[in-house]
Structure formats: structure tokens, C-alpha cells
């Protein structure tokens, strides 16, 4: 090639210039069209506001608050909220004799930022029913790795043997469901998000109405628990398919912490 270029003589400089322009133009076109890789960014799905969903069993019959097993023993209740890929625990918390206990509203601290939020108290006839995201805020393990240890069934934690906690066997994070899902031991730096429940005393039905606390693990903004996010974690509404209809189904699973 060098031969035919030098043979070209006087026009060589000009031709080099054209070549440079063709290169630049090619680079610009290719780079500009690489923007098309935005194609790989899936469209957002989700909902725009927290839905108010009636909790029902697998057959579609409403769950009665007064019939919910206490202490997730031997069965633990799980339902999706607010999206299909966001499982939550439904607890009827009690003491060691299996009697429901009243759970007062409480201020929860987020160790990651020091910010706080108000976790709702329990609902139901005894004020003992609460619900939390069932996805560990550390690295996302779910039930059965993340589960509730009823009174008398102790988890091995960094603070010794503890019962009445939610413990994650993946890396040992521990949460306190009696205290709004607050962090008991790391490695997690964020509490478990709370599902805000409503109880209708006339029908004994339960409704999930919204979330408070950090965004559910893996959804947009879950690593930035600012006070604004904690009060209204809208990120929960994106990154999963919406639940169809006005109900969400609670399923019951054997709790390995209670039987093991």
C-alpha cells in the first residue's frame, strides 16, 4: 500500500485528510448508534401507588385475623406485596405461652444512615399482627434462609442464641419483629421494611395498604434509605409485575426454625 500512496504524490496530503474525516465520521456514526444499546434496558413495569389489597388464602377466602397462627409455629405465612416478586411475612406475634402480644408503634433506626422512621404497631383483635418484607436487606436471601425463630427456638447470632427474631442463615443478619424489624445484628445495615396493615373489626379481614422503611431489597433506591424514602418507599412499586385484582394470596409454609 505504501507504494501506491507515494505514487499518488501531490494529492497525498489531501487524501490523508479525507481518510481522517472518513474515520471520524465512521467513529461518530458507530458511537452515536451505540446509544441503541439502550434497547437492552427493559421497560419499567410496576404500579404508581401502593394498592390496598385484601389478604386471602389460596382459595380466595379472606384471612381472618383472629384465626392466624401465633408465632409462625409451625406454619409461617407469606404473601406478595406490593408487587408479585416482593414476598412479605405475616406474623401474629405472641409470648412463649403462645398468647398474642400487643406490638406498639416504634421508631426504627437505620444503621446505614442513622435516619429513622415510624414502624406501625400491630393490628387485629390483640394488636399483635405485623408484616415485614421477607427479603433480607443484606444480600437478598429469602425464606427459608430468612425466617422467624419463635419463642423457645433459638437462632445462632453474633449476639449469642436468640429467639423471637428473624434471622438470615446466609450471612447471619438478625432483625427484631417486635421492634419494627429493627437490626439486631449485622451484616445488614438496614431494617426489614414494614408492610402497613389495616384490620376491619367488623369482618375480621386484613388489608395491606402500604410500606414504610427502606425500599425492598433489589428495587430502585434500596441502598439509599434517606428520611424521605423511609417515609414513602416508592421504589417498591417498580421492578416487578403488578398483582392483578384487589387481593393478595397468603400461603402457609412449614417454618424450619419451629420444627428443626
Amino acid at each position, binding site marked *: 500500500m505504501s507504494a501506491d500512496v507515494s505514487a499518488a504524490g501531490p494529492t497525498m496530503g489531501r487524501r490523508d485528510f479525507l*481518510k*481522517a*474525516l*472518513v474515520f471520524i*465520521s465512521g467513529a461518530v456514526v458507530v458511537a*452515536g448508534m451505540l*446509544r441503541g444499546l439502550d*434497547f437492552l*434496558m427493559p421497560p419499567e413495569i410496576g404500579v404508581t401507588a401502593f394498592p390496598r389489597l385484601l389478604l386471602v388464602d389460596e382459595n380466595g377466602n379472606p384471612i381472618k385475623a383472629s384465626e392466624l397462627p401465633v408465632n409462625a409455629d409451625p406454619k409461617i405465612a407469606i404473601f406478595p406485596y406490593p408487587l408479585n416478586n416482593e414476598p412479605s411475612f405475616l406474623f401474629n406475634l405472641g409470648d412463649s405461652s403462645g398468647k398474642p402480644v400487643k406490638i406498639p408503634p416504634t421508631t426504627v433506626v437505620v444503621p446505614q444512615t442513622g435516619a429513622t422512621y415510624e414502624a406501625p404497631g400491630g393490628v387485629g383483635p390483640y394488636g399483635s399482627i405485623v408484616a415485614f418484607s421477607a427479603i433480607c436487606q443484606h444480600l437478598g436471601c429469602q425464606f427459608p434462609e430468612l425466617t422467624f425463630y419463635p419463642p423457645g427456638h433459638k437462632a445462632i447470632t453474633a449476639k449469642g442464641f436468640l429467639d423471637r427474631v428473624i434471622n438470615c442463615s446466609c450471612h447471619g443478619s438478625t432483625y427484631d419483629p417486635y421492634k419494627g424489624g429493627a437490626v439486631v445484628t449485622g451484616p445488614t445495615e438496614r431494617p426489614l421494611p414494614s408492610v402497613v396493615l389495616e384490620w376491619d373489626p367488623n369482618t375480621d379481614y386484613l388489608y395491606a395498604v402500604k410500606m414504610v422503611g427502606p425500599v425492598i431489597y433489589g428495587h430502585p433506591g434500596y441502598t439509599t434509605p434517606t428520611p424521605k424514602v423511609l417515609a414513602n418507599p416508592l421504589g417498591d412499586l417498580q421492578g416487578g409485575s403488578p398483582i392483578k385484582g384487589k387481593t393478595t394470596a397468603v400461603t402457609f409454609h412449614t417454618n424450619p426454625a419451629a420444627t428443626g
Partner: protein
Amino acid sequence: MSKRSITDWFAEVFHLKDTPFMGVPDYMFSVEHWLGGIAASALAWQILTGLLLLFYYEPSDAYTSTMGIINTVPFGSIILSSHLYGAYVMIIAVYLHGLYIMFNGGYKKPRGLQWVLGVLLFALTLGVAFIGYSLTGDVLATDAVDVGKGILTSLGLQSLIPVLFGNGTQLDLFSRLLAWHITIAAAIILFFLIHFYLAEQNGLMPRGRDVGYKAPAVINKADPSLKPWWPRNFVYMVGLAFMVWGIIVLAPSILALPSVYHNIPILFSPYPGPSPTSPQAASVPAYPPWFFLFMYKMADMPFGLSKDVIIGMILPLVILLLIPAFDRSEHLHPMDRPGITALGLIGLTWLIELSVWSVLQPGVPVSPSWAAVVMLPPLLIIAVGVYAIHRFVWPKARDKALNGNAKAGEGKKEWALSKSAASALGYIAGIWAIIDIALSLALNPLAAGPYIGLLWGSALLSLSAAVFSYFYASYL
């Protein structure tokens, strides 16, 4: 370091100066020698966009996921519609490539196997495009699949229906269509590689007059006057690929413009048709994709479906495959091979006639007399005409035609465009491409898909023009 070193560096790391690819004489830098290259460029585009579509296509929800790609995924409308038009361009290129070779005797020694692979590639290309078209799950796709089943049954091949189209559930249907689509695409890639390898080994076919219009037509690759493959063929191929991609992106984007879209006949619509369950579905004629229109009319012929299919699809393929065996003479000029020339012309005429007829009277049964009125005259006129020319005119004209051709070729060296004009064109085109891309950055890929496609297509075409101008100014 001079600017030149980038290209030299590039050539060095890829050992481009030692590639086994052959350099070609100047006269071959002309589109009829690059029709295969056009098909290959379109294939490359199909692979790229097809793989992207795989990220979103859901066999469990074929139509909805397809419309979702168009309406909710950034750049999705461009990717999907250019995958469709890429298929169209590839099919047209394969047709032209094949016809050019058929008329010029390119299937003769030593290129018999190349021809056979080419015919298989042609059939596979039509097949993969048919299946791709069915993947969308629109009303036309549903019809196409039903007709496919009928055709298999008429050939006594109903046991193949579950293999191709599954066990009857929608999920199995679209899962299988997708698997077949990709399997056939993979086969095309493999066959193409062998086809290309053979083309390089046999050498590209020189023009007739250089070999006295006699097979075997080969170029002496050791000829020192042949300039090497790098950089001339490389640069030309790059310019060609950008041109093809430009057309593939531009054409459907124009058709998708809001002011144009509603006036586009469904056969050329850049997007899928209505869903088979929608009320509009009833008003859509049951057209197959346009490249199978000929078969749609064949199926209306009065011979019975199985004969229609054999005459319309199987027989032509068998004849094409056997052409190198029929015509073993050393002649290359079309007038020295009247049989093949007439065959090609008749086939092409019938193809066009049947396709147009199918658009005008979709699915209307053909009576024997109409079949004769439409099909026989071209057969007779072409057969008699070609034979008469070959027998009575050609013997006197032959010498002059073959040598006169040579002289005309000699004179062709006078190029119309001066080199500085070509350079100027190159600058304008290169800058134009940059402007197009800059403008496209201002547009939203979801709301303004067709406009971005317009600018991208224009940018690719301009870039191609710049590359060709550079090629022209530097290498010819």
C-alpha cells in the same frame, strides 16, 4: 508518527496483508460482483438485531411481547422493523445474486458445489424469513402457520407438523418457531461460510471476455498485476455494508412515519399486523409474506394442492440444484446457452406474474383456462424467442458481440467523476453523517423511533458514500 500508522497498525495486528482473500481486478468493483456481499451484509444485520430481539421475545406471549418491543422498549421499533426489512433486503439480494450467476454461467466448473450451496442458502433464507414472520403471532402469522400445515399435509408429510409447529398449544408453537428460526439461521451462517470459503478458493469469476466466454473461468491469483485484497477490497466491503445497513434502517423508518404508515399496504408494513383476536383481523386478506405470494397463487391452481406445491416449490428447487448437471458445456455467454437463459427468464416471469396475480385475487381459485392464458404465453414467447435469437441472429452477431463487448470494456476506463470531485463528495457525505447522528441525539427513542431511524439510515448511507468516495479517489 504519521496518521497512516493507524491503518498500518490495524493491518498488522489482524495480519490483513497476509489474508488468504484474493485481490480483484478494477472492473470488479461494481455492484453486480458484490450481490453476495450485499446478502452477507444483510445477514450480519439480521444476526445482530435478531440476537437483540431475543432479549424480549416471549414465546408464551408472542404478539404482546412483539408489540411491547415496538411500543415500550427504547429503539425497539427500529430494531424490529429493520430485522424485517433486513430479511427483505437479504432475500432480494439472494435472488439477484443467483440470477446474475445463472445468466452468466457461474455455476459451471469449478463452481458447481458453490452453486448447490447457493441454492440451499436461497431456500433456507426463504424458510427462515417465513418462520420469522410467523413469530410475531399477528393475524398473517397465524394464517401462514395454518397454510404451512396444509402444505405439509398435502405432501403426505403431516407427521412433520408436530415437529415444526408443536403439539397444538400456542406456547409450543411459538417456542418451536423460535427454535427453528434460530436453528435455520445458524445453518445459513454455516453454509454461507462454506460458500464463501469456496468462492475464495475457486477465485471470483472473471468477466466473460477475459476468458473467451469459456468455462472454466478462473483468474490467475498469482498474476502480479492483481492488487492485493487489503486494503482495497476491505474498504469497498465496509462501504457496501454501511450502504446495505443504511437501506435496511432507512426504508422501514420512512414507512413507519406517522404520516406514511397508514397508507402502507399490509404486505410492506414495517410492523406486524393486527392480533388474530382483534376485530380488524377480519378485514386483512390472508396474504403470506410477499416473497411467498407466488406460492399462494400456485395453491389456487386447478391441479390439486399437492401437485401445486410440487410444481411451485419442489420442482423449481430440484431444477435449480441440477442446473450444473444439465449444462456441462463450456459456453458462458447467455446466448450460447439458450436453454438456461430461457429457463431463467420463464421462471422469473412466472414468479412475478403469480405474485402480482396473488395480490389482485388472493385465494381465488384459478380455472384451467385462466391458468393456461396466464402461464402459457410467456412460456411460448420466451422459449421461441430465445431459441430464434440463438439460432438465427446470434451466429451472425456472435463474433462482433463478444469482441465488441471487449472494446466497449476498454473504453470504460474513462471515469465520469474526477478524483477531486469524488474527494469533495466524500467530505460532504462524511460531515453529513456526523450531522445526522448529532441530530438523532436530540430525539427520544421511544416517542420518535421512526425519526431516529431516518437519521440513522441517512447517516449510514452518507458514511457509505464517504467510504466509497475515499475508495474511488484512492484506489481506482
